[in-house]
């Protein structure tokens, strides 16, 4: 947010335009404001209220104060889920972004059939949340899966990776990296905003590809990298579907893939403790909001806008 204030301070328009902006902003934001008031705000605030209650879904809620929030810190499984989620975010987000950027650049231009390749590489992401994925992932990382067949050539006897407590989370990270299609597409779109003349000038100056990448592509792509970073982070903290599908909803084996949101879901819908689940959700919001704020603050130093 700091960044926006900064921008607002430095760029001072005349008084007339500012007045005009206010009115125009009201028009442009009208749908969003209506949506916020009518559809978004109520469920949000309701869940905040419910986080202070013992809401079971099946009976009306009773106020219990901050009991739910206190309970979290004594809940070993909650702490486990927090650990799993942090590990997941820490590894899979950078890996996925790197993969997406790499392939976006490889698929950007200069080759025949790129449209086809792009679509092929996007295909896994289309499937990412499907129920079939549990089975497909077992075909790759299961006891008799592709990976172990490959290892068998070298005489290595692999585990059933998806269902081993030490490796299951790793396979989910790979699953996340595998579905890099979304950030890749955004990078692809972003790369086209980088004017080609910069590269031409740089080539004439004799800058290497690597130099060009770091001194042209990265800075000019930085708003998009920033976007992907912020959104993938928010998304990864809420990762649910893949762990849910692959572990059959348990977060197993032995809670090794018990993502925060998965645990929250179990509490809310399986143990009928929606009050506790809501408290967990708001605590997560606090964490993610803080990290996003840090992200925005840090972006002042590496994200370049043209305005």
């Amino acid at each position, binding site marked *: 947010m700091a960044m926006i204030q900064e921008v607002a301070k430095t760029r001072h328009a005349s008084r007339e335009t500012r007045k005009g902006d206010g009115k125009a902003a009201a028009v442009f934001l009208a749908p969003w*404001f*209506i949506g*916020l*008031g*009518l559809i978004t*705000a*109520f469920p949000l*605030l*309701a869940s905040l209220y419910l986080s202070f209650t013992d809401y*079971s*879904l*099946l*009976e*009306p*809620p009773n106020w219990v104060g901050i009991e739910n929030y206190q309970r979290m810190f004594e809940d070993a499984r909650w702490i486990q889920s927090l650990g799993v989620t942090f590990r997941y975010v820490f590894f899979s987000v950078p890996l996925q972004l790197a993969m997406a950027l790499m392939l976006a650049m490889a698929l950007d231009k200069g080759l025949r059939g790129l449209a086809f390749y792009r679509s092929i590489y996007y295909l896994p992401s289309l499937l990412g949340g499907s129920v079939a994925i*549990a*089975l497909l992932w*077992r075909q790759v990382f*299961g*006891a008799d899966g592709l990976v172990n067949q490959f290892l068998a050539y070298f005489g290595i006897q692999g*585990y*059933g*990776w*998806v*269902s*081993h*407590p030490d490796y299951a989370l790793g396979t989910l990270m790979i699953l996340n990296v595998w579905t890099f299609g979304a950030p890749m597409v955004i990078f692809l779109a972003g790369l086209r905003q980088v004017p080609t003349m910069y590269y031409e000038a740089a080539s004439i100056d004799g800058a290497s590809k690597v130099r060009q990448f770091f001194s042209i592509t990265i800075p000019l792509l930085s708003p998009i990298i920033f976007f992907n970073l912020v959104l993938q982070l928010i998304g990864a903290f809420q990762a649910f579907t893949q762990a849910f599908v692959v*572990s*059959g*909803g*348990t977060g*197993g*084996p*032995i*809670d090794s893939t018990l993502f925060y949101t998965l645990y929250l879901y*179990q509490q809310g*819908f*399986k*143990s*009928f403790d*929606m009050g506790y689940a809501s408290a967990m959700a708001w605590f997560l919001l606090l964490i993610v909001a803080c990290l996003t704020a840090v992200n925005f603050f840090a972006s002042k130093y590496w994200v370049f806008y043209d305005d």
Partner: protein
Amino acid sequence: MRATTTRRGRSRAAFIAFTAAGALALGACSGDSGVPGEAGETEASEEGGDGDVSIRFSWWGSDDRHQTTQEIIDLFEEKNPGITVVPDFTDWGGYWDKLATTVAGGDTPDVITHEERFIADYANRGVLADLESLDIDTSEIPETVLDGGRVDGALYGLATGVNAYAMVADPEVFADAGVDVPDDTTWTWEEFVEVSGQISEAAGDGVWGTQDLGFNEAGLSILARQKGQALFNEDGTLGVDAETVSQFFQIGLDLQENGGSPDGSRTTEIQAAGPEGSLLGTNSGAMGVWWSNQLGALSSASGHDLELLRIPGETEFDRTGMYFKPAMFYSVSATTEHPEESALFVDFLLNDPEAAALQLTDRGLPSNLSVRESILGDLEAADAKVAEFMAALDEEIVDAPPVPPNGAGDVQDIITRINSEVLFGSMTPDEAAEAFLSEVEAATS
């Protein structure tokens, strides 16, 4: 019970009204005038114009069940003009999320398919009607089966049919390994572990004696009953001691040690794969414990002629432990606007021979004995085998375990997690027993 139900019903309505008022107030702040009118249409067409009644029936399952259930609904509507039954089906996982949400929103389905592990949660919170106050003929259902749907004396669910938790065996795998199928009327848990080890050894790579049985609390429940205990007592407290629980987990560990079942990670993987991906389903195992109604799915997956055996230990301790489990329940919403029509429909589902002829054993071997009798001739080979097996068990089974308490839906997750701890060597059976008891206690209190 009556009084509390209505009080709860009213306060739930009050909560919804309150939250909705909040929502509309928020909407008003942003200056939006109101609500589009088109939404009402579906509601109106659902109810029909001239006194027609529409009730919603919710169930879970896969495509086969959806088709047959729709046929049954069509039959009912034909026989009862003026009543429309609106189907509401989903898969097992989505079903419970949706049911809880619709109850929270005050849109409880009129007729609800329920399950043993969750029925107490709903019944104790006033969501379900006492079926004995409705006009449903239960005279053909044995009392022990009826009792399976009672919570605190009131009848909240009528068993659609019954299943038994049993050992499924593949005689071909036994024969290939050169091991005789043991006599299930006398075999002990120790024999079961031994036989499994022998098969694994004789059959070679990729074939095992048995699939691990530690992921389902039904096995523990049977062992406890064999020793004169119970997983849950009538009052919902734990009725099993640490020694028995430890013994249960030890069976899994013994099977790991003698090779009778695959290693921890493969076991966990197979566990998640359902009947189709099980050891039996893929012809890579000789035994596995399943609910009797799964014999059909297992048989068609394996392509072999599978057999049902009794759970080991039935003659080893104080008494027999096997029991008939209500496959599912039919329940009626406590807040339904059409209790008579709902009752009529449940009555039809349970007692109508034509409906039964369509349904066969899809919702378990019918709990209505005369209906069960009437369909025996129409059953496919595997299902006929189940019926025969259940008939043989009938004399041995002593009683039915009571409906498990609130929070029993968590027990499966707990036992799955703790059994994995044992299989991966991070807990001894004794530690596991202690952890299991304290976690279940916490979840169900």
